[in-house]
């Protein structure tokens, strides 16, 4: 506690730095992953290669990537640009799959109907396809929001300042409370940003608000291939009904 009262200006500083590294990476991941996921879904024969590609990208451990990225793109080793690029790589690796699944969840018949009433492909994307893919996409954004915030801290071992600095500093000086503070603040930041993402989702997709209370089950219904809303709504009841049966076994 004494440590915190003496160091809180620095902690606040690191918190803001951490935020400033996370948010651009999350936004950039979304901007890159949506077109990629869309092409993976619609391009003939693209889905397999794209998904395998992002799978391999995801398999690369983060610490080596902090070393390799600067050599590849010429950013300084200990810089926020290196950090944001690395975070974006992982964000894209996860989000492309979500985006592909999200677009797969939009029924082809709906897109045909949109074309039939006169939507161009462009306007059909913005006004029909993207909104319908929204809930599944949102679930993906929530996943990368939390993992990005957590991943930022790894940069501390090579000297990129963030809340992770509390881990390296706390470890070197043997202050357990400092490390603990870092963990708590990172989890808090993740929860905060996740909450903001959910809020943004509700504002952008007001029609999902009614079922906001069953978000967990919603996601399970989301990628159902046929995308019939009846199935999505029926899911929670099914899940509830399965419970007593399972318990009686």
């Amino acid at each position, binding site marked *: 506690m004494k440590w915190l009262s003496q160091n809180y200006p620095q902690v606040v500083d690191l918190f803001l730095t951490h935020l400033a590294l996370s948010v651009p990476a999350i936004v950039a991941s979304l901007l890159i992953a949506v077109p990629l996921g869309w092409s993976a879904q619609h391009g003939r024969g693209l889905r397999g290669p794209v998904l*395998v590609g992002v799978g391999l990208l995801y398999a690369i451990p983060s610490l*080596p990537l902090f070393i390799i990225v600067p050599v590849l793109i010429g950013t300084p080793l200990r810089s926020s640009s290196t950090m944001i690029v690395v975070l974006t790589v992982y964000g894209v690796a996860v989000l492309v799959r979500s985006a592909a699944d999200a677009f797969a969840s939009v029924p082809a018949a709906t897109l045909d109907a949109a074309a039939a009433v006169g939507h161009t492909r462009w306007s059909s994307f913005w006004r029909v396809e993207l909104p319908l893919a929204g809930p599944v996409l949102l679930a993906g954004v929530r996943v990368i929001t939390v993992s990005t*915030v957590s991943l930022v801290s790894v940069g501390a071992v090579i000297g990129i300042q963030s809340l992770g600095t509390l881990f390296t500093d706390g470890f070197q000086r043997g202050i357990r409370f400092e490390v603990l503070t870092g963990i708590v603040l990172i989890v808090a930041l993740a929860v905060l940003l996740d909450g903001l993402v959910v809020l943004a989702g509700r504002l952008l997709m007001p029609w999902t608000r009614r079922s906001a209370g069953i978000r967990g089950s919603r996601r399970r219904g989301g990628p159902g291939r046929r995308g019939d809303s009846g199935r999505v709504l029926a899911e929670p009841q099914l899940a509830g009904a*399965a419970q007593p049966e399972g318990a009686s076994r």
Partner: protein
Amino acid sequence: MNLFLDAWRWLATGSNWTGDGGAATRLVEHLLVSGLVVGIAAIIAVPLGVLVGHTGRGRTAVVLAASAARAVPTLGLLTLVALATGIGLTGPVVALVVLAVPSLLAGAYAGVESVDRVTIDAARAVGMTEAQVVRRVELPLAAPLLVGGLRSATLQVVATSTLAAYTADVGLGRLLFAGLKAREYDVMLASALLVVALALVLEGLLALLQRLVTPRTAAPAEHARPARNAHPSSTVAEKSPTERTS
């Protein structure tokens, strides 16, 4: 690009591989620690996950554990445990097991959960005991997702073992940090590339294993999908469908 050449030269120099702190020793250490951790985690998580999947009890806890684990920063956990246990192998092993358990747990649970209820009822109808249902019906059908959990756990452990070198004298991460400290970019880059290669090789092998354990008769893409997506959080959910679509 010149740095990549330097790194390659470092890797191609035999004397960098031999000796006490050589790359070969570090590589073996890395594999041993990762194997030990995944083994311990599997002993804890797989039976528990199968139990949860079979009985349907405690699934909320499993889903919560899986998503909470994603939020906890690995470096924080590593340093915290290292401060508690002191310098040595115990710290990283404990921290890594904690990190590996949720993926394995989610994989085992999701696998068993994804088995069609009708199939299980049929197994009971032909007179199988509960133990037989688990061993001869649920486990074989759960295998792809179970191995998917193993795959993401292994991946995470191999990656985080590199980070563990920050608190313990073990694994390829040691070389990376040594290079960082001495400002020897070739050593740093060479060890980084080694870790990446190791991760990709293991990923490939486990993907192959996952394909091998997928029952040929089942075409589970349709009915297994919702159950998998019940854990949007777990890497299992994100990775497993790769094998089906590619």
